[in-house]
């Protein structure tokens, strides 16, 4: 890592297990999953696939955010603004200037709107302002406008590793002194597009997902938004801002094996974790807890598990929190960064729900209960389509 240490001074999250950081922690602590029946998304698959849905309608979100009637926010933008506001508030960022940047991740951005309006534009000119909503930058711009961020604003779209990559990009912008502070994270909402897309790949489970279980059948989708405010340690200390955690290291590598499936040896995951450790100047044995990508697909858990075994002589405590929130796509890396920091703040590890049987191909089992213990370094993994593998390492604030 380049000279300056990067710290987290604000966090915000909304997911199926809570609408702020405290609620999410409470659910994690009590092993209360948010996965259940689809209620808000209108889909023919309503009764077939459990999901991690946020039980807040778009109207409720818009009202909370005090948006005007014709606001043209996509659901992802609503969730994003909702969570981002929390992070900025906690970090006490009152005045936004050009030294404040925004790096957002999203995989399908405004697809929730596009799939509703796709054939309606020609008859309804009032929908014209939604035409570009299909593209990730649109959702990011809406959130940036809401927060008043006008300078460096960008979107990363690398599927399920987008959130983690946004954290990385933000850190780089700070380290190279392009910005003094940066809001980083991601947002994705449920949509027919992703539900049917993952279904066509046959990796959705019609039961509650079971990460790292021998009999896992696939993932449950979820929706969420998670954001961190990053600054340099020096800047945070200068303004007496409490530090929540340190971002010790990060890395991104590519599996280069297949468009959607991971290699059997988990090469991309292995390289990402290995390089993140190197970046952080740490040895594998110093990692106390891994928040795994753990989607509960037959392919990912085997690949990730194998990579972990290759890298760690003794596997640290490990769990996937996707059995709580569902797989929130781009947002996963971001909300799991928040969860990793919670683990450090509260000195605990979170359970990997629904686990029953150890995987035959692996020599470890995940953590199955909430447990208080010493945690100094947490590794968080996020792997996306296109072989995109990212790992972040956080450490405890003193």
């Amino acid at each position, binding site marked *: 890592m380049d000279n300056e240490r990067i710290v987290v001074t604000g966090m915000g999250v909304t997911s199926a297990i809570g609408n702020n950081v405290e609620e999410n922690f409470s659910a994690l602590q009590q092993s209360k999953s948010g996965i259940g029946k689809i209620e808000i998304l209108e889909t023919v698959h309503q009764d077939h696939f459990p999901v991690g849905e946020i039980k807040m309608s778009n109207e409720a979100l818009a009202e909370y955010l005090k948006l005007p009637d014709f606001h043209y926010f996509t659901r992802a933008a609503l969730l994003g603004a909702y969570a981002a506001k929390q992070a900025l508030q906690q970090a006490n960022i009152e005045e936004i200037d050009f030294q404040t940047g925004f790096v957002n991740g999203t995989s399908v951005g405004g697809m929730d709107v596009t799939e509703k309006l796709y054939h309606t534009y020609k008859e309804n000119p009032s929908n014209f302002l939604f035409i570009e909503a299909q593209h990730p930058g649109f959702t990011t711009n809406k959130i940036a406008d809401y927060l008043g961020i006008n300078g460096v604003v960008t979107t990363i779209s690398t599927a399920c590793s987008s959130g983690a990559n946004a954290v990385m990009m933000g850190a780089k912008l700070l380290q190279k002194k392009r910005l003094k502070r940066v809001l980083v994270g991601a947002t994705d909402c449920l949509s027919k597009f992703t539900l049917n897309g993952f279904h*066509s*790949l*046959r990796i959705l489970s019609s039961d509650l997902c079971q990460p790292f279980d021998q009999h896992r059948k696939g993932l449950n989708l979820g929706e969420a938004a998670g954001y961190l405010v990053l600054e340099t340690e020096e800047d945070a200390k200068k303004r007496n801002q409490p530090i929540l955690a340190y971002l010790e290291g990060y890395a991104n590598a590519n599996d280069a094996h*297949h*468009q*959607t*499936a991971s290699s059997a040896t988990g090469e991309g995951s292995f390289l990402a974790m290995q390089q993140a450790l190197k970046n952080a100047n740490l040895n594998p044995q110093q990692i106390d807890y891994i928040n795994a990508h753990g989607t509960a697909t037959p392919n990912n858990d085997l690949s990730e598990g194998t990579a972990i075994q290759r890298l760690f002589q003794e596997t640290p405590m490990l769990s996937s929190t996707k059995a709580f929130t569902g797989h929130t796509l781009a947002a996963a890396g971001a909300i799991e960064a928040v969860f990793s920091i919670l683990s450090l703040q509260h000195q605990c590890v979170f359970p990997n729900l629904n686990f029953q049987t150890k995987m035959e191909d692996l020599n470890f089992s995940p953590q199955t209960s909430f447990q208080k213990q010493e945690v100094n370094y947490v590794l968080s993994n996020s792997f996306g389509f296109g072989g995109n593998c990212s790992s972040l390492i956080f450490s405890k604030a003193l």
Partner: protein
Amino acid sequence: MSNLREELKEKIIEQLNLEDLSVEDIQNDDLLFGDEIGLDSIDALELIVLLEKDYGIKLTDPAEGKEVFKSIETLAQFIESKQ
């Protein structure tokens, strides 16, 4: 009988966008996932969709798929057995 095999070849060429192949290029016993035709796991998913959409046969066990999709011949026989 042979019409089904020809039909399958046509459908596979179209569905999987195998522009360079014609029906004559595919032998009934060629390994679809071998070097001759060279299909991959994404194609396997497409074939599952094709089977259900065009022939009304639902394949739920991926292991069964491996045998069924071995060649045009095995695929044709499977479809015939279900009719």
